[in-house]
């Protein structure tokens, strides 16, 4: 990480950590959700941006994490902290199976299999009423205290710090991952998988591993959402969310980790602003999305970093 980028990220984290002291409760709720969505979008970036594994079913990770977390909070006495990470772990373990099946195919077929798996979970969430609550979903999910009487996370502000810590931690994990030898192989798969195989890499194992990590972190985001919103419903597994998170990644800037977080915040902001003006907000956001794909495919973060570099060494501008 370059010194400038590190300073910028530290500054952003400090500002985010100070936010509860300056922002009204309503804004804090929006910010918390934006950070959760940011974590969700960043997890997809590992697959989409770094490995060119286009998932049309990333809602599966989010919904599974949310339902698992919600179910455990409702039906057990386990502390929130353990439940959240337990749900993420469970999602990652399930994803090993999902990845194993989906990576039997490549390209569009891979995408369709991820979609099929998400739709399968969506169908299950409707039918398995005793666990999922059917079309009503799980309601009244509490933020439980503990362990040892530790109850900071039961408050909205305390929970916000948990979300922020999860996002920062996940970012550092992803950042280390994409810069490691493992990450170099992912980049090889992205640019030329046939050649990567010919070099002696068992690319399928790498793909299954990255799917598992992406789902675990996506599951963590979902697991944070359930106690944040107090409910988990079938919408969290619906393909619409899978499409929206892809849009967040693309608009923010894929293959950058930071970009998708910005993309998620941008999406939330636009949804909030546009929907206060018009019912057809999705139509206008669609136009914005098309504009990004056509004129700035590198996304918000891509445009910003290019602009920063150009202003720093104007002689090398091309």
């Amino acid at each position, binding site marked *: 990480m370059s010194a400038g980028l590190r300073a910028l990220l530290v500054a952003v984290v400090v500002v985010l950590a100070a936010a509860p002291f300056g922002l009204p409760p309503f804004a804090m709720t929006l910010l918390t959700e934006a950070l959760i969505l940011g974590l969700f979008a960043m997890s997809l970036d590992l697959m989409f941006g770094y490995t060119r594994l286009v998932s049309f079913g990333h809602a599966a990770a989010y919904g599974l994490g949310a339902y698992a977390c919600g179910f455990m909070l409702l039906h057990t006495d386990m502390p929130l902290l353990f439940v959240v990470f337990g749900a993420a772990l469970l999602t990652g373990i399930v994803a090993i199976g999902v990845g194993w099946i989906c990576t039997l195919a490549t390209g569009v077929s891979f995408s369709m299999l991820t979609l099929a798996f998400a739709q399968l979970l969506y169908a299950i969430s409707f039918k398995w009423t005793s666990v999922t609550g059917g079309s009503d979903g799980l309601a009244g999910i509490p933020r439980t205290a503990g362990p040892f009487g530790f109850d900071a996370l039961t408050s909205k502000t305390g929970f916000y710090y948990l979300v922020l810590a999860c996002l920062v931690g996940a970012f550092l994990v992803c950042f280390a991952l994409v810069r490691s*030898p493992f990450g170099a192989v992912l980049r090889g798969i992205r640019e030329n998988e046939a050649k990567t195989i*010919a070099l002696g890499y068992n690319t399928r194992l790498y793909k299954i591993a990255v799917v598992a990590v992406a789902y675990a972190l996506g599951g963590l985001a979902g697991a944070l959402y359930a106690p944040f919103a107090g409910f988990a419903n079938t919408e969290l597994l619906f393909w619409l969310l899978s499409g929206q998170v892809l849009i967040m990644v693309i608009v923010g800037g894929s293959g950058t980790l930071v970009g998708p977080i910005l993309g998620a915040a941008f999406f939330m902001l636009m949804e909030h602003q546009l929907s206060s003006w018009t019912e057809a907000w999705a139509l206008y956001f669609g136009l914005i999305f098309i504009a990004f794909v056509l004129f700035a495919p590198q996304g918000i973060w891509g445009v910003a970093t290019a602009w920063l570099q150009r202003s720093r060494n104007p002689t090398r501008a091309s």
Partner: protein
Amino acid sequence: MALLELDGVTRRYGALVALDQVAMAVEEGEVRAVIGPNGAGKTTLFNVITGTVKPTAGSIRFAGQPIAGLPSHQICRLGLSRTFQITSLFPEMSARENARLSAQARHGRRWQPFGGAHIFEEASARADAALKQLGLSGIADTPAGLLSHGDQRLLEVAMALAQQPRVLLLDEPTQGLSVEETQQAVETLAGFLKTSGMTVLLVEHDMEVVFRLAHRITVLHRGAVIADGAPDAVQADKAVQEAYLGGFE
């Protein structure tokens, strides 16, 4: 014992017999060329040896170990590195990163998901050495997609070399190059082969390239071996002449 031994290797695609009972043995340190008219089965032979295509029948032994039917990444790791007829690189990575990723494939901890500075260092050292052997040090930091076609072909060879293979399989290394580029590439390759003593299996169309580089030639025709021997002997062979001239009838 030969380093690479094929016996009765056959590959059928439906009624088409792409390889018909191919037997050949490549000795350590030998530069062997496989030639033959279009559709003779040369590339299929490569694909069968490297495991991208499974043989229908027959045995392939590498250093005495049977490898027919193993997945290609395992065969590669045993010490067979190949280049492709159609240039296959990582276009957005620099030449050095291309060769580094190639060298990393031979590292015991190539999959390490954190840190790994020492793995990159070792792989980079091998990558730089391979680039130097083929005279590519000057373009090490250029993205592979921006290199000239000739340099791209040599970079593929350098990537294979960075793996320090026991056998190097080159599939038409001068494919698509102009006459001057071909001459340059061949001189570079000849110089490298002379000093390194590398065992090479080479598929090539261009006879000048073959006679400049190969110690021994195997001729394929309609999937079968019709001649095998020193370059002069093969050139004088009646069956070979007919196979090549037959293509114009």
